[in-house]
């Protein structure tokens, strides 16, 4: 497992990792904000 880290591969993996969790979290935050807006509009 102690293989060398390729710089390009790692950068891609970093981007993909953060994109996936950001997409999941972003979906949750946006949906919750839509719900939360009802506090001020209802």
């Amino acid at each position, binding site marked *: 497992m102690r293989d*060398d*880290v390729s710089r390009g591969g790692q950068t891609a993996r970093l981007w993909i*990792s953060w994109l*996936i*969790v950001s997409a999941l979290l972003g979906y949750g935050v946006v949906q919750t904000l839509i719900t939360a807006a009802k506090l001020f509009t209802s």
Partner: protein
Amino acid sequence: MLSALDRRHTVAPPGYSRWLIPPAALAIHLCIGQVYATSVYKNSLIAHFDASQTAIGVIFSIAIVMLGLSAAVAGTWVEANGPRKAMFVSACFWAAGFLVGAAGIATKQLWLLYLGYGLLGGIGLGIGYISPVSTLIKWFPDRPGLATGLAIMGFGGGAMVASPLSRQLLSFYDPGYDPANAGSTASGSALVWLFLTLGVGYFLIMMFGVFNVRVPAPDWRPAGFDPARVAAKPMVTTANVSAANAVKTRSFWLLWVVLFCNVTAGIGILEQASPMIQDFFRSGGTSAVTVAAAGGFVGLLSLFNMAGRFVWSSTSDLIGRKPIYLMYLGVGMVLYALLALFGQTATALFVLLACVILSFYGGGFATVPAYLRDLFGTFEVGAIHGRLLTAWSAAGVAGPLIVNAFLDAQGKPGTLTAAAYRPALFTMVGVLAVGFIANLLIRPVPERFHEPADGRDDEGTGARKVGAERSGSR
């Protein structure tokens, strides 16, 4: 085959970016955080099984009790076997919980839901919750609060993802289901497909975390990190304490009380949030706050709960763990008192106070692993964290019990006003005061509990040398 998941096979190669670890941890916590979204399909389960609120509510209770128990019991195993195997086992239990639960719904066997989502899923929850914590602390010795805050923020975010997703999936599988209508329930087959989809989807996302997680090499340190600076802080140990010894210390139990009090107070609001805001602004039998607006308030609380986990835990890296808990508990006392006395004067004031309180609740969860690291070192911090989480299970029972007992004595739901909440809120001020005093009494762990400085390591392979070096520098 499982040996490929062992700690010794997951040591990061030179140059491995530590910023790959937080998304790996988030992949786990975002999935298991679903446990706080079970209310979305609760009514559908009640209709499908023709069961009582309590009979369905028990599924969630079993899962939370199993979370505390499995985190406490499996903590040492998680430390010994490393994060990758722990995350894999967690993913298997969590996904199996959904699949067995789906079988229970399909065959109308409620006990299979207890066994599946409750028991198996609960074990996955407990192991998954603690699996990335000690690894994150070892990768981020310079910013442990930020690292654990990021992961535990995911647990709060998990419910925010699962709630709308479950509603949308149920509508997709059962076009007759209307999530906007509180009286509408989804069919049994839609519930089965929801559980199957969530089980498979969560397993895949969690495997992404399993794939990316690595433990740092024993001699690894972040660029520019000077352990001597850590050693210079008064409440931060450079020694290591085992989980078995940690539970014998006064500081562990004081911190248990701190977490218990902080969670008890927060759950008091969280559990009652929707009816509470309506009751606070009720006059002449009708509330000025609509059901939809109350739902919006619950959503806002979720956001602050999640944001508090990251913001306050990161702040604790700068101001220290003890001071930030003094803030959670001390300022929390003032906010609870203000809520009880003046909460009913304006909706904006009520919302503001409740949101800050909930951010402290989340912050308390996220900061505690870093506090444990400061007190007991990195050696078995995950296992110690697991044992401390029994405070969460206890608070999960105590918080709602306190609030509901007071409210039951005040009148029937739908007729209560702000005055009915005052006894419960002032009780929470007292609970926070107990936690505040407990936090003040926390002291560094006496040397007799420290691990020997030579011949042992943090990782079970060689990292205890780091502990030995740090002990020396203390």
